[in-house]
């Protein structure tokens, strides 16, 4: 039998028959361990992600069991590969169609900064059009690096306030990208 690792319980008060903790910590724990990836794979980094999804690296261990391939229900957008300027509106539409809460990982040099494609037709980093939570370095990154990025995002999700989408900072950030939030 292999060793089974369970998610650690959040800090709280434990007693006979009850356990009290903060709601946002409990929700964060649930969210962090059930991220649904939406792979936006355009190049070689996408192939590395396929290896990450495969049995050797097994992204499913972290609760990211099924890639969504649709903005519906997905909450972790992984942008993997070169994004041409012509593709930028498509990527932005996919991001806008995702429901809150949502997070973005830029995988590899191209998605993070345009990479070696320092040219007129390539977007020099997806953070020009959508907000990014985690950048994964490498060209392409190994599957371990992508797993590292997902684990890092899990830490962000665990420690996030429940109503992030209503904070003025977050609204200002989306406003800066020209993404209008219509949830009050």
């Amino acid at each position, binding site marked *: 039998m292999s060793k089974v690792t369970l998610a650690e319980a959040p800090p709280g008060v434990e007693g006979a028959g009850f356990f009290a903790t903060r709601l946002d910590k409990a929700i964060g724990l649930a969210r962090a361990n059930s991220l649904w990836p939406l792979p936006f794979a355009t190049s070689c980094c996408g192939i590395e992600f396929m290896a990450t999804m495969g049995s050797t690296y097994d992204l499913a261990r972290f609760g990211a069991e099924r890639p969504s391939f649709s903005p519906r229900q997905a909450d972790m957008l992984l942008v993997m590969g070169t994004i041409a300027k*012509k593709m930028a509106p498509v990527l932005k539409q996919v991001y806008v169609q995702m429901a809150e809460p949502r997070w973005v990982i830029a995988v590899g040099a191209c998605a993070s900064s345009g990479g070696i494609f320092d040219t007129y037709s390539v977007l020099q980093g997806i953070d020009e059009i959508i907000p990014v939570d985690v950048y994964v370095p490498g060209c392409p990154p190994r599957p371990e690096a992508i797993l590292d990025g997902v684990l890092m995002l899990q830490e962000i999700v665990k420690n996030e306030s429940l109503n992030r989408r209503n904070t003025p900072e977050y609204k200002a950030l989306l406003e800066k990208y020209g993404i209008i939030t219509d949830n009050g």
Partner: protein
Amino acid sequence: MDKLNNQLIIERMESQFGSTFVVLGEPHGLLTISVEADQIIAFLQFLKEDENLRFNYLTDITGVHYPKEEKAFHIVYHVYNMLQNIRLRIKVAVAGPIPTVPTATVLWHGANWMERETYDFFGIIFEGHPDLRRILNMDELDVFPMRKEYPLEDPNRVDKKDFYFGR
């Protein structure tokens, strides 16, 4: 039908067009001729429909930019005789700033996308083209990227060196 060779092709064209074209050479055996912009469609039509030549397959249309020349833009046509496996290259030189040449879509529908691509990258206008808009670059692009009018990258840049990408 005789086996075609470059000499026969030249003679056949001379019998039709006299000396309105210039033979530029035969690099690697590929006969290359130069014609004037107002003659190009007549030439292509003759090459396509003539009983002996039968260059009925348009391989490619593209452009070249020679910024120092008076006629700075060359439009290059490659045509192919499928029956005899012979290729032919035709060049047309036109002057800027808005280089204009008649469209070959009247002869080949396949010229449509080739000319759109040439317009996209060189800004060459094909008169009479049914749908002359960009095909590869984004529509908002306001330059023609393959023209040689942009400075080279600063050679002292280090921010995109392999070292920073773990390579």
